[in-house]
């Protein structure tokens, strides 16, 4: 038997991208603004979701797909504030993919949703390589993680539309240099929008709410 070389030249995650485009179409059809939230564990994904639901749920119907780790603690917290939530079992996996999100969409009352949050698995290495069907890719960096995170995870910062800089209430105890942080992030990603906030004290959150509301309205058309 002779050996033959077959040229492929395809992304290994091409199938995921096709599925993500399908999810996006489905969400676009219902004018649901979808936000993929990524960060390291504990940076504040669930906190940001809960604060935002509390602020905007009188005006908009918000649903959540929870992908963060094994337990359903986060899903229960979201459920407690009255938003429809589906917990995705990633079976210990390190990221959500578009197929998992499709399953999540199958289990949500999509006709009654204006805004969908997807809480990704807490990890800065790979989730950004998996499109899910989102409109907005949001990452949370928190002050205790240090201002050199963009050097360690440049692709994550380059891929994000929004960076939430959380836990600013801890600034007095840390030597986080916001100016240095911003310089690298803006350099890597000139279009990025950075919101310094504290989910704990609420400082800076109004700017985020206002921006997000603008995006919901834009999507509604």
């Amino acid at each position, binding site marked *: 038997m002779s050996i033959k*070389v*077959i040229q*492929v030249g*395809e992304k*290994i995650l091409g199938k995921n991208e096709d599925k993500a485009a399908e999810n996006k179409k489905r969400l676009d059809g219902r004018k649901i603004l979808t936000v993929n939230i990524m960060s390291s564990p504990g940076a504040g994904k669930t906190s940001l979701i809960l604060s935002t639901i509390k602020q905007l749920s009188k005006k908009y119907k918000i649903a959540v797909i929870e992908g963060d780790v094994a337990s359903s603690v986060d899903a229960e917290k979201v459920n407690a504030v009255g938003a429809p939530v589906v917990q995705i079992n990633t079976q210990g996996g*390190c990221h959500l993919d578009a197929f998992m999100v499709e399953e999540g969409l199958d289990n949500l009352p999509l006709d009654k949703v204006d805004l969908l949050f997807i809480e990704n698995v807490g990890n800065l290495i790979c989730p950004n*390589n998996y499109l899910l069907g989102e409109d907005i890719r949001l990452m949370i960096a928190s002050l205790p993680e240090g201002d050199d995170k963009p050097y360690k995870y440049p692709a994550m910062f380059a891929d994000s539309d929004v960076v939430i800089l959380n836990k600013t209430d801890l600034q007095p105890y840390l030597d986080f240099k916001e100016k240095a942080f911003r310089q690298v992030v803006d350099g890597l990603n*000139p279009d990025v929008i950075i919101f310094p906030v504290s989910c704990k004290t609420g400082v800076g959150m109004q700017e985020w709410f206002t921006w997000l509301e603008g995006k919901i309205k834009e999507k509604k058309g």
Partner: protein
Amino acid sequence: MHEASITESMLSLALEKAREAKAAKVTGINLVVGELAGVVPDCVQFYFDVISKNTMAEGARLNFEIKPTQIKCRKCGNVFTPADHKWECPKCGDSNVEIASGRECYMESIEVE
């Protein structure tokens, strides 16, 4: 864990291409992977050996071409290898840079019989 998922996607793509070519056996898979892609070649080979059993890709050799991280200055176009924590362009000093290489994750070709 990430390697397990990447390897599954990679194997299914290789099998699909081999079937399309009506091949009997996949003997090699040539991959291009960037340093920033979060993929450890040894882990991929390990998972591959497990999950390719009883498929026509069993025993295939994985070849990795690793692409180093390269940064490109958006101002002057200079391409350079970033030093730790210093990403300004060494030529013009600008910090407006993009990742030019290091994120690749694709299958270049397969070798079949």
